[in-house]
């Protein structure tokens, strides 16, 4: 049933684009988002200056990435924490699973973390007989539906309140009503039991703060706070690129992340954590582990042209701005990271099987305009396309076509003859009703669009006639 990732992408795109209810839900969500973000940006005296600053911070962080990671690591170790460096997903998963098994962990509460999605952590833990509870409301909803997150910031964006109510009534014991408030309360009751019985909490990190030696987590619901306060082991899973040099940098990055992500002035709980419970503290976990995941990031770092892709702070703004995302939806990408940033990143993280995503863009540039750290996303999509063509990942028809074109256009007579041949052939093909069929070399376009009428004469012939009239 399943084709290649590229075929699946096309199939789902067609399905979702013609699903008007889906489009209505996404439009409703993104309209609410746009209103909030508009208000949020007006709180800045100079939003553009804030973007400049964030870009500068991330650029500096990456330019000395090794030093900053070591500075961070040393302080975590000094406080009694552990830092594990994972080259790839497998190493990260195994470390966490082995740790959980060794400590006799039966239940894990997770706060939202895209890196744990990227490394496919939960299935490995569940296979080891451990219960894994997603505790961010959106993540909890998609977990109950056995679905991956739809959107990096709003995992259940594709669902209406009524669909969620139906899901909760099927899965939770005490759903009283289906208004927003009651649904949130039902999830709170269910998850509260998990928070207080879990032995391990797993979180991501929005930032790794080098000078303070702490990680920063932003959460609105407070689930991230509970995951990192109550269970006796806290494991942080994060990418090596999340570094910022100084605590002071958060004075801009915290408000910028919140504004671009949800339109809030700052996330409700903007938290710094540097280790396990210290002497004299009332509570906190006994163990603190940080898993630093590379998984292809150092390769991207080596690419001077695309290094800035690692600036991404996962705010989701480019997804919301993207006309392609709005139509095909998050699940269609078949990847952990959706939208423009996902289309740039996924071919790097998961290989050439996903190079088609770099073409899932009209290059309109809306993503680059909203990106709070000024990543030039359309540019990187083009670079990805060029790189995959260079690597030989190009349809034979396309490479032959371009070779022929190059040869033909180097000589005026050749060009005239080929032009006349192509026109005649196309007119004949279309008059026989083969438009958009596999015989049509322009099928990728004409299968979905009415082809323009092909003129009988060439531009050159037309020009000569016009000029002659003068």
């Amino acid at each position, binding site marked *: 049933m399943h084709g290649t990732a590229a075929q699946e992408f096309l199939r789902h795109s067609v399905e979702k684009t013609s699903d008007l209810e889906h489009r209505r839900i996404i439009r409703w969500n993104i309209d609410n988002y746009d209103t909030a973000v508009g208000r949020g940006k007006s709180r800045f005296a100079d939003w553009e200056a804030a973007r400049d600053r964030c870009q500068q911070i991330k*650029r500096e962080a990456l330019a000395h990435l090794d030093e900053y990671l070591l500075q961070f690591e040393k302080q975590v170790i000094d406080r009694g924490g552990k830092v594990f460096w994972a080259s790839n997903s497998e190493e990260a998963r195994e470390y966490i699973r082995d740790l959980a098994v060794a400590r006799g962990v039966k239940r894990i509460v997770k706060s939202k973390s895209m890196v744990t999605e990227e490394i496919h952590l939960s299935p490995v833990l569940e296979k080891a007989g451990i219960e894994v509870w997603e505790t961010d409301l959106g993540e909890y*909803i998609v977990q109950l539906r056995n679905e991956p997150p739809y959107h990096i910031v709003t995992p259940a964006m594709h669902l209406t309140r009524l669909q969620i109510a139906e899901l909760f009534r099927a899965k939770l014991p005490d759903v009283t009503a289906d208004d*927003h408030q009651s649904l949130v309360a039902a999830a709170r009751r269910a998850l509260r039991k998990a928070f207080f019985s879990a032995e391990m909490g797993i979180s991501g990190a929005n930032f790794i703060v080098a000078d303070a030696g702490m990680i920063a987590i932003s959460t609105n619901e407070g689930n991230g706070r509970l995951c990192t306060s109550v269970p006796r082991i806290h494991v942080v899973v994060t990418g090596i690129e999340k570094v910022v040099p100084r605590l002071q940098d958060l004075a801009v990055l915290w*408000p910028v992340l919140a504004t671009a992500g949800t339109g809030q002035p700052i996330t*409700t709980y903007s938290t710094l954590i540097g280790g396990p419970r210290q002497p004299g*503290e009332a*509570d906190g976990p006994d163990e603190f582990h940080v898993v630093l995941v590379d998984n292809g990031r150092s390769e991207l770092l080596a690419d001077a042209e695309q*290094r800035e892709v690692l600036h991404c702070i996962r705010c989701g703004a480019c997804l919301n701005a993207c006309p392609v995302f709005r139509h095909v939806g998050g699940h269609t990408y078949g990847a952990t990271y959706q939208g423009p940033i996902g289309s740039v990143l996924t071919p790097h993280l998961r290989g050439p099987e996903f190079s088609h995503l770099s073409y899932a863009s009209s290059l309109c540039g809306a993503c680059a305009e909203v990106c709070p750290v000024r990543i030039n996303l359309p540019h990187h999509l083009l670079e990805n396309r060029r790189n995959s063509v260079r690597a030989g990942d190009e349809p034979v028809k396309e490479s032959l076509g371009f070779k022929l074109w190059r040869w033909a256009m180097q000589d005026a007579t050749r060009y005239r003859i080929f032009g006349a041949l192509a026109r005649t052939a196309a007119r004949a093909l279309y008059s026989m009703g083969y438009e958009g069929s596999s015989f049509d070399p322009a099928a990728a376009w004409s299968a979905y669009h009415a082809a323009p009428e092909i003129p009988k004469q060439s531009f050159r012939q037309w020009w000569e006639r016009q000029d002659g009239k003068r």
Partner: protein
Amino acid sequence: MESASQSSREQILERIRNALRARVPLPASRAEPRGIFSPIPSPLERFAAECAANYTELTLTANRMETVEALTKILGELPVGEIYVQDVPELRELITRADGREVKWSSQGPPSEASQATITQAEALVAITGSILVSSVGCGGRGSSIVAPCHIVIARLQQLVPDLERALAMVTERGLPARSSFVGLITGCSRTADIEKLLVIGAHGPRRLVVILQQ
């Protein structure tokens, strides 16, 4: 496991160092961008406005007497059950005056799941976002600001700083990263907008955040 990590650590660091040999041209160095945020002429006014916007209940009191009154009133509204209090002399004194409740002190361990409220001090208050800054060493641990449905903060006007830059500088000046395993900036009560992007107050953390600010 340990040795595997050791080699991965070296490999990752080496990959990073090799990668950084490819220099990315930095843009012409710009002066530190200024004026990202507007100046704050009246921190207290701004703090009060932000609290109103983010659903923090702010009570201003003129003296200790009024603080006790305000606290007593709030505790009176709460259902029966444990009140968790940061164990410091200032709060011990307040609580003995606002008595009649079952109290657990932070020196006796973490707050229980069924706590009705937590009472703590703050490291600072931040005007620009209407936030309170807490730490685990200075504010009775981690659970003291997240476990109960109501978090009450007892603060003084001198603790109010205008912006995040000042608040974060304070974290460094007080040496909190070295002493405190947790530092948190809290802005309003727990919330979510995960269903249809509509705001609901009271997700997993406190539904009420109360700041009693003595001038």
